[in-house]
């Protein structure tokens, strides 16, 4: 049981290392990359935008009522922006990439595996990792980074709207507290998180897809596992990255 879990973990890391090596191997599958990029983007953009509006609103409302109690209402904007940019946005992006893009990648690779397409590819001397997995992982990473920008903007707009319109906050105070509390490294770490989460989602989806257990039902199970495993890893990695970030980058004015 434990050795089984360790073995799977080891294989996951081995695949990650192999993908890392295969990224630089010619010829790069440009066409496949574009197609996957387009696919992942098309299934994630709309849900991401729709999720981020209420999420930004919830943070704005929650932080707004707390700051009101503390008498620090003028800092509502900065606080909710930090929460959205640093935490909510990369996580929303990762959940959507894993749930919408990763599950599709996993199902696609899984059904190809059980149809022996990947074996056939290997027999013809073509590495499925270089040919199929690398473009998918890179697409997941690229879409994650770009989508993160979108979600941050939409989330902040949602927060702004709810704070100003619903809670009677002043637009000036909301905006000026941006620069009072937030700083550029917050944005950098947000994008870095999105990049890494995209990588994790792509690798886990590919790993489960390449190793489905027994027949079509195995593919369904693999998709399920890939989403669950990605979620678990995301929250753990997010915690570690947040802790490290707060250690090495001093908060503004702190």
């Amino acid at each position: 049981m434990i050795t089984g879990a360790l073995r799977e973990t080891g294989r996951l890391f081995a695949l990650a290392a192999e993908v890392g090596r295969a990224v630089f191997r010619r010829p790069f599958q440009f066409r496949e990359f574009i197609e996957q990029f387009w696919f992942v983007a098309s299934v994630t953009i709309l849900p991401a935008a729709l999720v981020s509006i209420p999420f930004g609103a919830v943070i704005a409302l929650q932080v707004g009522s707390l700051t009101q109690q503390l008498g620090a209402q003028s800092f509502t904007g900065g606080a909710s922006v930090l929460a959205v940019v640093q935490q909510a946005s990369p996580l929303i992006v990762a959940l959507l990439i894993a749930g919408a893009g990763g599950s599709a990648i996993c199902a696609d690779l899984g059904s190809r595996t059980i149809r022996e397409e990947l074996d056939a590819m290997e027999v013809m001397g073509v590495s499925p990792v270089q040919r199929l997995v690398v473009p998918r992982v890179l697409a997941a990473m690229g879409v994650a980074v770009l989508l993160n920008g979108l979600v941050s903007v939409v989330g902040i707009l949602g927060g702004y709207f709810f704070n100003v319109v619903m809670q009677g906050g002043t637009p000036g105070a909301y905006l000026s507290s941006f620069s009072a509390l937030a700083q550029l490294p917050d944005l950098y770490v947000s994008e870095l998180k999105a990049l890494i989460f995209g990588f994790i989602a792509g690798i886990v989806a590919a790993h489960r897809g390449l190793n489905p257990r027994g027949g079509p039902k195995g593919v369904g199970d693999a998709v399920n596992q890939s989403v669950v495993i990605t979620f678990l890893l995301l929250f753990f990695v997010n915690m570690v990255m947040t802790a490290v970030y707060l250690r090495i980058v001093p908060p503004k004015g702190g």
Partner: protein
Amino acid sequence: MGIEVVVEGLTKSFGEQNIWRDVSLTLPAGEVSVMLGPSGTGKTVFLKSLIGLLKPEKGRVLINGVDMVNSPTRDIYETRKLFGLMFQDGALFGSLSLFDNIAFPLREHTRKKESEIRRIVMERIEVVGLLGAEGKLPGEISGGMRKRAGLARALVLDPQIILCDEPDSGLDPVRTAYLSQLLIDLNAQIDATMLIVTHNLDIAATVPDNMGMLFRRELVTFGPREVLLTSDEPVVSQFLGGRREGPIGMSEEKDAATLAAEANSVTPAAPRVIVPQRQPSPGLPPRRAVARRRERVMRMIDTLPPAARSAIRETYARDAAAATVTAPVAGSGA
């Protein structure tokens, strides 16, 4: 000329379950061999081990000095270009048309121009009789067509070693006969080493130069076709006769009680006749492997069982007689 495949002491298990152990055999260069075995004896696993898709725990598979089990990945990938593998259900890429499927190895491994690729692919499509279907997706054609398309794809790089995984499964007897003929014709044309894994008795009786059989986690025998066809080993005679009486049961093997009960009510098996091997279609060059095999078999004939020995002598005597009969006819016609 094809390449010799040497298998030494191969042992493969999945977890606790041993599939077969200590399998040693040599596929002679350019000859056609068949591996028989009841369902579930690891024939496909054997095929996949030859090409390095599965890793046996013990043993070696030597091809041109490269060990397909333990060599570095790069060497294995390089050696795989010598192979053509026909999968059980074709294993075509579902998103590509038949043409693109068959062109795939050419586009990956050669720098040929698109017009050149088109020429080669259409030629292969014609060989397997799929002209007119090249624009279809694998999901739109029948299982037999997928199989033939898989064969065409396996042939497109002019492989030196061709492996066929159950070429007959899902095909009617007529198509199976056509496919058997196609395999023999191919061998005559490109002189590749071929291994066919099957449990079809018709293919087994008419196609191969050499035959082997896997049963009970072991290689029962491997050698010239006459050895297996005349073998009085219970497993072999049960399998070739397609009878229920014998060591092969519905699940892999039978227990002693059932075997003892059968022994009491034994019906004598009909004597097996050795059917002559298929010849290449008229107009094709003779198979170069035939002469090589004859030389090889004659060298080892004293080590073979007596029944096989007389069968081989008989076959070659008949061939010689046929040759002397046809030769003057051919001469007068010229």
